């Protein structure tokens, strides 16, 4: 059985020695399909409501029921929400992984386990608490089918009492989780209370692992990246969305459907949108392209295998200049790979998706707030630049829960790009060319089908075409077209989100990363400064094409560490293609399918720097 932690690494500390309050990791090991998700959400939510910064990661198998699954909750008074490997509080409900899960614990950790597992004594630096979960659950319900579910809520009560989670916050989290279902609320609260009562009678409260109210989450929201992206798409005015189910992107479209149904019906109850579950990803992107061609703001969401299928249409969109938005919620691996594990392995493929000389605008959201923002931007860019725009998210960002400032309502109006209406055509006396660069920015004007003017129509094709959209095989026409497409890409360079740059006084070392790596890199910089006296500057890329900022940043540092979650250093390759000269670009690569964590970055940098500055 695989193990998600590693007992050989030393204990990680987020805060100074001794200060363990509001700084711990809870790991819940259960069996897929046993309904532990609600319990874990209640735990996480209650901690959040106590004002303690928190994050939750679901490490789940590609399976419906029976395989092991883990949920990790990290509470961090300093607000570090990236993955932390070492575990302080283990809740062990899965006989299949119990032994390995115990091995991964921090010295001094506690292990709360289903007494049937018999884990006590397997380590002497860990305190074991066997709990008769089924027996307690049996006191709440006599329904044998419900007992597993209830047992999961019992551990919530036990853990809460031991580490100091307030009961009132648990109750409000349960009410939220089961909103409108009074019976479920009652049953689950009863289970929690049984857990609390059992713990109070039989166990001792923890001193080392303790949570305590603070005030660091007020006004913040908790949301996953896919829901954030769906919200952004809705406020970005999406009108046609298509999808074919694939983990980890399905929840984006499912969230979108819910939001659209709630907020995007016209006064007469009719939908101002169409969502279609396509028969495959080729169809999904084909529909998006057809809809965008006819004027809709359209998008689809998928993951690696779907991206591969979309390849041919991506090229048509680029070459015939048709808007489209494609979200790639990356999972790991060539082929089917590990469908429920995260990665940043589609970067190279997406950047040049399709045959021939093809290049795409790609956005890299690094937070849930950017998922929201970039969802709107992507719809604008697709129409502004009349080309497919890809948004590269990943499973960790997309499916896990993140804290964030509330999202800001857009201040800019929706940008529909260059569209000639019948009135404008009349003014022009019907004289226009679909692929004519009249503005010198490489972006031509288009008309929409149905435009009521005899000169509005043109013929769209993925084969050779001239400025009037007529078929051509002339060498000079092809070269002209390709040069103009390049020019358009150059125009985009001036519009895409610039990188976020944080410079530190005197730093000779620069870090470059993108996407969901951000949280781990931020924390790593903090640890490098605190424990290794190493100052680093940091550039977080947010889009392709790269902006000028990249070149300047690289030039300003002696060594650059490019941190990414794939095997081949794909971002480093793209940077190399972009930059002149031969800068010292070193790769830090994390690609085991689990999210990047700060300690990995710290240790990699320290090892490559060749010395530990501070012991």
């Amino acid at each position: 059985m695989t193990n998600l932690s590693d007992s050989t690494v030393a204990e990680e500390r987020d805060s100074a020695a001794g200060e363990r309050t509001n700084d711990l990791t809870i790991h819940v090991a259960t069996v897929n399909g046993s309904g532990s998700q609600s319990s874990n959400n209640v735990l996480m939510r209650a901690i959040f409501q106590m004002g303690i910064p928190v994050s939750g990661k679901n490490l789940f198998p590609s399976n419906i029921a029976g395989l092991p699954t883990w949920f990790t909750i990290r509470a961090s008074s300093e607000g570090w929400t990236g993955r932390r490997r070492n575990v302080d509080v283990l809740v062990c409900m899965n006989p299949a992984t119990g032994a390995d899960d115990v091995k991964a614990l921090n010295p001094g950790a506690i292990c709360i386990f289903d007494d049937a597992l018999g884990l006590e004594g397997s380590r002497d630096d860990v305190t074991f608490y066997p709990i008769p979960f089924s027996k307690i659950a049996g006191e709440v319900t006599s329904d044998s089918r419900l007992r597993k579910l209830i047992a999961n809520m019992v551990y919530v009560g036990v853990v809460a009492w031991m580490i100091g989670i307030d009961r009132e916050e648990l109750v409000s989290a349960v009410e939220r989780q089961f909103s409108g279902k009074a019976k479920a609320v009652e049953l689950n609260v009863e289970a929690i209370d049984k857990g609390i009562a059992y713990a109070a009678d039989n166990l001792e409260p923890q001193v080392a692992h303790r949570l305590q109210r603070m005030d660091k989450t007020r006004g913040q929201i908790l949301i996953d990246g896919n829901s954030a992206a769906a919200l952004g798409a809705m406020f970005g005015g999406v009108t046609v969305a298509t999808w074919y189910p694939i983990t980890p992107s399905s929840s984006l479209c499912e969230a979108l459907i819910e939001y659209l149904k709630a907020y995007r019906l016209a006064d007469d109850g009719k939908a101002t949108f169409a969502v279609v579950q396509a028969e495959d990803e080729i169809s999904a992107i084909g529909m998006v392209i057809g809809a965008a061609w006819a004027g809709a703001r359209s998008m689809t969401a998928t993951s690696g295998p779907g991206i591969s299928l979309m390849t041919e249409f991506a090229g048509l969109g680029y070459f015939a200049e048709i808007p489209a938005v494609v979200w790639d919620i990356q999972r790991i691996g060539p082929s089917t790979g590990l469908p429920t594990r995260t990665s940043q392995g589609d970067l190279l493929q997406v950047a040049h998706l399709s045959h021939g000389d093809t290049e795409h605008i790609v956005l890299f959201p690094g937070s849930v707030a950017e998922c929201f923002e970039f969802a709107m931007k992507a719809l604008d860019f697709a129409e502004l630049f009349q080309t497919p725009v890809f948004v590269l998210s990943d499973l960790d960002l997309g499916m896990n829960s993140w804290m964030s400032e509330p999202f800001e309502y857009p201040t800019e109006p929706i940008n529909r790009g260059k569209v000639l209406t019948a009135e404008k055509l009349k003014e022009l006396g019907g004289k226009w060319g679909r692929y004519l660069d009249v503005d010198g920015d490489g972006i031509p004007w288009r008309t929409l089908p149905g435009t009521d003017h005899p000169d509005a129509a043109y013929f769209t094709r993925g084969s050779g075409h001239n400025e009037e959209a007529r078929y051509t095989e002339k060498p000079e026409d092809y070269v002209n077209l390709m040069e103009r497409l390049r020019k358009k890409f150059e125009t985009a360079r001036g519009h895409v989100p610039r990188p976020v740059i944080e410079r530190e006084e005197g730093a000779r070392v620069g870090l470059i990363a993108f996407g969901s790596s951000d949280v781990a890199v931020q924390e790593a910089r903090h640890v490098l400064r605190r424990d290794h006296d190493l100052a680093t500057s940091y550039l977080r890329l947010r889009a392709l094409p790269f902006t000028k900022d990249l070149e300047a940043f690289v030039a300003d540092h002696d060594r650059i560490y490019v941190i990414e979650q794939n095997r081949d250093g794909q971002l480093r390759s793209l940077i190399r293609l972009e930059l002149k000269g031969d800068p010292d670009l070193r790769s830090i690569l994390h690609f085991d399918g689990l999210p990047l964590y700060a300690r990995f970055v710290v240790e990699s940098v320290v090892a490559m720097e060749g010395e530990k500055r501070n012991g």
Partner: protein
Amino acid sequence: MADSVLNLTGPVAKENRVGLSALDYKGGKSTLCAGCGHDAISNQIIRAFYEMSVKPESVAKFSGIGCSSKTPAYFMSRAHGFNAVHGRMPAVATGATLANRKLVSIGVSGDGDSASIGLGQLLHMIRRNISMVYIVENNGVYGLTKGQFSATADEGSQLKNGVINDLPPMDLCALAITCGAGFVARGFAGDPKQMVTMLKAAIAYDGLAFIDVISPCVTFNNHEGSTKSYPYAKEHDEILHQVGFVPSFEPIEIDYEPGEVRDVSLHDGSRVLLKKLEEDYDPGDANQAMTRLHRAVSAGQMLTGIVYLDPAKKSFTSQLGIVDEPLGTLSQDVIRPPKEALDQIMAELM
């Protein structure tokens, strides 16, 4: 090279109800082989849209890749056209009809495009009942890649180089009925009169109107060994029933005597009148249609005419419950919810 507008004489010179002449429906110059069945079909498309008085500006033309798929460039230049990728026109057309439900859509494909690489998309589009006319110009070969067999090639037919097809052909009409199409017809490129009446009925139909047209490839599939060549088609063409299409602006009462004529009302109020040659044939009966298609195959015949018609089927766009105006041009105040909506959602997430 053939001119796309052939024999448009007589009544076509006068203006139609929207004040246009047939010439306003013409397309670019065809680059297909002279005598290609596909050009004949383009001419009937021009005629049908002209006679139906559909404004070309309101039409969207779609195709995949192939000789047949080139033809949308050869009719109605005043309509937007989209030459998609091979076999994937259904998805593009689906998206476009969602974005603008007011478009009158017509797709032209080949048997390679529709029955091989694009079969999945075709069947799913039929299942969704996308509102459009979908024509397969069926010649049993891949014309554009120079004469390989397609999936509709008859068993035992022979290529010019002597290769014999050992596999049974797909019957696209039968497949269309199986997947729930509400309008299924088969025509022959050499029978313009029947073609134009079927096309007009198809244009008036609200839903997917599927027409499989035997359209001989004069260059690669018009020899003795082929079952889709002109001589063969002429000889074996069995006219199932005569079709007389009556648009609603010109109401004509036609008696439907059981066993002889079937009068079917279409969504826009126009009607199709079908004359049966056989007393027991009912175009409203899917089982009967399948039986007749199968029986014709065993008899080595091609059944032409409207094989199946269900005027009551709901099209995809009407099923989705979307607003009446085109989605693509809705204004910002309709497609961006107000700030209060975001505030509310944010408050719920706190």
